[in-house]
């Protein structure tokens, strides 16, 4: 976890050093990718979202001096990128047969990138997919992004208590959903 205001990486990023961006990817790339996949449900869009986040850091590096918590800053940027990608997807008119093909491709692509999962893990993923977006998002930030509730609150722009209770409701709903399908 990044401690607010003390991350030496921020100064190097603000200076535009390429090695700093490599270090940034190595430190956060995996968590960003998993959280993006959790939110968007598509490996291709998760890759695009991670790329968008790092490019956004490059473009706004002059403002990095004001960043208190790099982790929360990156995940807030990821949230915006995911929102843009989801909106772009929603705008694309897709013919029925193309939609079927797209879903099949995405499933195959997802299966190829995902480690071998048992039937229970599979059910868990399906149940996660049935959650409302805001609950799926909070689980992705907590479990895949490994964020604290304070950081989740920062990212979502809500209080820590709201972030924590949203997470609890999401887990409760997920548990009910798993109970219904078992």
């Amino acid at each position, binding site marked *: 976890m990044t401690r607010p205001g003390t991350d030496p990486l921020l100064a190097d990023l603000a200076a535009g050093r390429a090695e700093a*961006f490599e270090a940034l990817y190595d430190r956060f790339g995996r968590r960003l990718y*998993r959280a993006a996949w959790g939110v968007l449900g598509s490996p291709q869009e998760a*890759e695009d979202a*991670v*790329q968008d986040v790092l490019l956004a850091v490059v473009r706004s590096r002059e403002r990095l001096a004001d960043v208190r918590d790099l982790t929360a800053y990156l995940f807030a940027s990821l949230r915006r990128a995911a929102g843009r990608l989801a909106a772009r997807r929603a705008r694309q008119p897709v013919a029925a047969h193309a939609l079927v093909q797209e879903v099949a491709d995405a499933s195959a692509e997802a299966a190829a990138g995902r480690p071998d999962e048992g039937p229970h893990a599979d059910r*868990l993923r399906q149940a996660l997919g049935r959650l409302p977006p805001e609950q799926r998002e909070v689980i992705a930030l907590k479990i895949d992004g490994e964020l604290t509730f304070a950081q989740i609150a920062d990212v979502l722009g809500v209080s820590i*208590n709201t972030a924590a209770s949203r997470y609890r409701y999401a887990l409760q709903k*997920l548990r009910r959903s798993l109970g219904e399908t078992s």
Partner: protein
Amino acid sequence: MQPSELPPELERLERELAGGPRPEAPPELRDRVLGSVRAELEGGERASAGRGETAPARSRASGWLSFAVGLALGVLLWMNLSLSAAQATSYGRHLRSAASLETTADRIRELLPDLPEEEVRRHAMALRAGSDLAPCPSVAGRPAAGRLRGLTELLSEGD
């Protein structure tokens, strides 16, 4: 809320989620992302080197440009509003050409023959007084203003 505050069944589910197999970013994503980052960094440096500027100088220049554009827009808006107000303002010049109170009263009598003499005098005085008022915007389309304009036009024609 601390994780320990979750009921045991939800804590179990949380452990399952965290401990289960999770997707890994493909290895080529690192090269793709860092390649685009390098291109963006180099593009930015080339752009600022071409202009002989540093990043803060670029920021100052864009700040000044925003201020200049904002100022120009403000001036244009002010000019537009001033011209509109000037065009919509009646200076009552047509009333000043009316020769006298009696001429005005005669015109009113012609226009409204049934109006009592007392009212004719009152309207004539009001019209003459109106001609000496400070400029004011005339509100087009209002019935009262339309009637008044009709009267004053009639008076002007008579001069």
